[in-house]
């Protein structure tokens, strides 16, 4: 895939500038992490759990969301249930102001969502700066972009659910944005509103999207982790306590409140922006709709193809090779491979052993960890055979 990289002349000015930038960014990232290590040791360094941080907040969101779900009523008007008006807004109001600690749970749900988006961005920036998203890792990057888009959309549906004036405005803006799309715009609008206008069914659809997509996240997360052996899913407990503590602190410092209840006959036109989730509504309000859609699509496409667009820095991957007559089928390399690139298959007929290690070439990163795991010299990097390493070591160790 990238085998021609090394032969290209280094006269491409864009490539040079980009390489220079990434090299500096890499140094900066590592320097920041070294400084962090001085204070809290590498075991608790949150930079080393950059992928686990959003994952942890996902669990926080699931649990707090479950508690909110128990009291939330996804309608815009359910007056017949009692004398009082019972709808999404009043149920959120009940959760926030009447239920013991309801406001805290709601605050946790809101701010954990913000924190998740923030940490997803930090995670993406770190893997970009440290060049850990290309070649054998493309599937993690592409699923990561999909996950980010899903998380942003789920977060936005969360803002519709509150059903205050902002929710109404956001819903209307979304409808006009969908309407502007050619061909699929109409059906998407009908799907979004669960009908042609905003009705009780609209809010139940929002709730379904909000919760259903959240569970769909788990499926995409599985794809995100599928080629990684022992993915780091949880930060150490001490870091978790700090993460929850930080959220609680913000909840108490800046309590959540709703705006006034949405009134379908009103025309709200101004609202506070949550920059983590609602930045695209700001863009929508400040540019023509077609420019908005084109720029959004372009941003998503560029982010997705970044691993192929950037064919720089590191050398092409030359996969490890198994020495068939030396392999004993002990599966140490299979266990240690960080990318699940080694598969144990039945050994060919006539072999003394039951299993044989094989390399799944597209997954191989050429890191040599399998070589370090092999006590039988049975797996090798073609560009750096361990026999030649041993010869070099022996000749220099013997030299006086």
């Amino acid at each position, binding site marked *: 895939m990238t085998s021609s990289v090394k032969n290209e002349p280094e006269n491409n000015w864009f490539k040079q500038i980009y390489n220079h930038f990434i090299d500096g960014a890499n140094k900066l990232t590592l320097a920041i992490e070294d400084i962090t290590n001085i204070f809290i040791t590498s075991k608790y*360094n949150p930079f080393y759990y950059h992928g686990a941080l959003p994952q942890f907040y996902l669990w926080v969101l699931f649990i707090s969301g479950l508690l909110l779900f128990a009291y939330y009523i996804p309608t815009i008007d359910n007056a017949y249930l009692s004398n009082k008006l019972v709808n999404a807004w009043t149920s959120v109001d009940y959760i926030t102001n009447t239920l013991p600690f309801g406001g805290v749970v709601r605050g946790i749900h809101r701010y954990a969502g913000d924190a998740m988006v923030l940490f997803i961005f930090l995670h993406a920036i770190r893997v970009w700066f*440290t060049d850990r998203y290309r070649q054998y890792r493309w599937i993690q990057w592409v699923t990561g972009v999909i996950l980010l888009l899903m998380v942003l959309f789920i977060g936005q549906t969360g803002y519709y659910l509150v059903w205050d004036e902002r929710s109404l405005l956001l819903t209307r803006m979304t409808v006009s944005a969908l309407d502007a799309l050619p061909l699929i715009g109409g059906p998407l609008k009908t799907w979004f509103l669960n009908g042609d206008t905003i009705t009780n069914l609209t809010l139940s659809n929002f709730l379904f999207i909000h919760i259903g997509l959240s569970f769909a996240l788990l499926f995409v997360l599985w794809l995100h982790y599928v080629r990684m*052996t022992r993915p780091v899913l949880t930060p150490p407990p001490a870091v978790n306590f700090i993460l929850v503590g930080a959220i609680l602190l913000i909840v108490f410092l800046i309590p959540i409140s709703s705006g006034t209840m949405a009134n379908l006959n009103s025309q709200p036109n101004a609202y506070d922006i949550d920059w983590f989730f609602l930045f695209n509504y700001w863009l929508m309000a400040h540019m023509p709709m077609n420019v908005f859609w084109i720029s959004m699509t372009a941003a998503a496409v560029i982010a997705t193809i970044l691993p192929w667009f950037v064919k720089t820095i590191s050398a092409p991957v030359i996969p490890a090779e198994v020495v068939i007559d030396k392999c004993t089928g002990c599966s140490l390399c299979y266990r240690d491979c960080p990318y699940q690139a080694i598969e144990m298959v039945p050994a060919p007929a006539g072999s003394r052993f039951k299993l044989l290690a094989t390399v799944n070439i597209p997954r191989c990163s050429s*890191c040599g960890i399998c070589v370090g795991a092999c006590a039988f010299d049975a797996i090798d*990097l073609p560009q750096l055979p361990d026999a030649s390493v041993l010869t070099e070591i022996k000749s*220099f160790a013997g030299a006086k």
Partner: protein
Amino acid sequence: MAEKKTVITLVCERAADLNDLLDSQGNITDMSDVHVVKFPCSGMIQPLMIEAALKAGASGVIVCGCQIGDCYYREGNKMIKERLLGERPPGLKKTVDRRRVIALWLSRMQKQRFISEAKEFVYRMQALDIAEAAVPKTEPTKAAPPSP
């Protein structure tokens, strides 16, 4: 006086950046008795290589990978760390003199730290060589281990 022996450094090319310290032979320019072998990842280092180096007459072996927790290939430095500690097969043989092996976990930016640690290690190995040269070779078990 014992003869000056080599210290072999097995280093991940993404860990402490030693490129501008090396001469064409792979020795560190102002520490000519330290030879550097670079690997794509410290996880590629076999305990066997450490044994071979010491057996061939190296005075000591420095293993250098990235900061634990950070590895370009996710787990390489953790693997070699566990192998050195005997927590993951294949491990280092029990006969290997543990005083002659040191592991450093240094990021790309920590070249100076590497130099100071390597200098101290070389100094310690020279002291060890002198101390061991003073003990008669015929004695298989050490009555009094020389202080490192």
